[in-house]
């Protein structure tokens, strides 16, 4: 890849990084906290691309010719012959994420990824603050599972709980209400599954997002092999919702 094409590739890469981080699309791939760094990185890439482009165009020589003296092509000369055999030919691969983001824009992780691993373990916690006074009280799946397991449901009893997540099939029948927990990016996503007891509206299918309200129940699924514990919610009402901008917890 010659200098000018390298600059164009960088421009495209910086462009898609800015495009996804200025909209909410980046939330499908990484945590919200990374946004300022993504924007900064996108700006740096665009600036470097444009500045090097201007420099090359001013410098001289046909931009689409071979290396001809342009400094960055030193390593292509190392080959002795020809160009784009090694070294910067790897740069062609950088177009892959550009195309993947720009054209395909892969969706957030869903029930397929959730089914591939057991429900994530929740951290042991010794003390639990009482739930806020709202009714129903909206909770994250992690908070609900943590209180159900380590607080034995004490702070949950007698309250109406509201959970939001997508449906993923429970192997023994029915659905889990699932959220994917991210620490950094979708590669480390782990599902938190809450079993749903009681009636769900008809016609729901995997990957549909719902908001469910209901009460704590002592029912739990245990998997000895993976030491996985899945807690349940007795659903009193549920309705489909549009997926939130931040699909992960």
């Amino acid at each position: 890849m010659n200098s000018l094409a390298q600059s164009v590739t960088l421009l495209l890469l910086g462009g898609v990084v800015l495009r996804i981080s200025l909209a909410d699309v980046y939330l499908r791939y990484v945590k919200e906290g990374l946004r300022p760094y993504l924007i900064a990185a996108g700006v740096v890439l665009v600036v470097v691309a444009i500045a090097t482009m201007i420099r090359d165009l001013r410098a001289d020589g046909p931009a689409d010719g071979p290396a001809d003296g342009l400094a960055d092509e030193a390593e292509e000369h190392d080959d002795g012959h020809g160009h784009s055999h090694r070294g910067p030919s790897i740069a062609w691969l950088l177009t892959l994420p550009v195309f993947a983001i720009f054209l395909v824009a892969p969706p957030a992780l869903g029930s397929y990824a959730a089914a591939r691993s057991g429900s994530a373990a929740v951290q042991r916690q010794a003390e639990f603050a009482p739930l806020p006074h709202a009714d129903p009280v909206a909770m994250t799946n992690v908070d609900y599972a943590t209180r159900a397991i380590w607080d034995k449901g004490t702070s949950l009893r007698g309250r109406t709980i509201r959970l939001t997540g997508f449906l993923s099939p429970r192997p023994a029948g029915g659905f889990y209400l699932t959220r994917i927990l991210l620490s950094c990016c979708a590669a480390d996503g782990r599902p938190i599954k809450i079993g749903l007891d009681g009636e769900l509206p008809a016609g729901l299918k995997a990957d549909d997002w719902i908001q469910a309200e209901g009460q704590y129940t002592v029912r739990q699924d245990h998997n000895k092999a993976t030491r996985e514990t899945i807690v349940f919610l007795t659903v009193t009402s549920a309705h489909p919702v549009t997926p939130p901008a931040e699909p992960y917890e």
Partner: protein
Amino acid sequence: MTVAPADQAPETSPPQAPPAPVRWRPGSLEVLTVLLVVVVLLRGQLVRLFTSPAMATWATVFVSIVVQAIPFLVLGVAISALIAVFVPPSFFARALPSRPVLAVPVAGICGVVLPGCECGSVPIAGGLVRRGVTPAAAFAFLLSAPAINPVVLVATAVAFPGRPEMVFARFAASAVTAIVMGWLWLRFGRSEWLRSPSRPDLGGLSKWSAFLASARHDVVHAGGFLVVGGLTAATMNVTIPQHWLSAVAGHEVIAVLALAVLAVLLSICSEADAFVAASLSQFSLTARLAFLVVGPMIDLKLFALQAGTFGRRFAIRFAPATFVVAIAVSVVTGLLLLGGA
């Protein structure tokens, strides 16, 4: 008189002068343009390719690995370019002990100051070697920086609440592994395995131009290898069934090996791996320590980046050695600090 050279020139110059034959093939910019047009035209087919849940998940994991790494890669490249352009080689000669045996541990511990994950440390180590830092010291820094910086240690503390020994064990095992690898390189390493990190020839450019040339070169180069790593890691991430893991968790020895291999295959960022380790609760703490020590030092993405920066001959020797040393140090540290199994 003028006729003869003019006659000769067309016959002899095409094979001799490099620019001539090039006119016959399209330049990279034309190829790139055609590629863009083709991809846009075939958009429908490409999108359809990714409608199956497995392919969509694969694409999501691939994109997120790359997107997650880009800020750190850009930071690392920027620091590396700043070093290349603005820090005189004499600075490192003064900052590091002149005896390589001592420079290795000093550089290893200096890893504490680089907040970030492993994608940034490879270009920085490349920049250090270019600036005349002894490779052994640069490698100690390369290995330790992603594992022992404050961001990663805090993440580890959060992921393992009430277990400060895990943070300490991670710090100790990572620092020791990095220093041991530095010393092993001093003793057994050969400079001919090392392709001196390719770099733009910065001579004669203004500082700003030199910075730009260096930054563009490094981003394009390291970025390409990051994509290789991201593709492999996403494939592993989507194809390894998790129940394989549960099957081996009970065997202490196999469990350590299994999690070490898993760390290599998953290529998770070092700032996030502690949370994944915490959720692998069916495994012993020592096995999970091995996961945390191996991951930031060697995984598929890093192997690709190292091969790109220092050459394949280096990477195929350095990576397995790192893997073995990291596991051995983790096991010893686990026995000493985490009460064995």
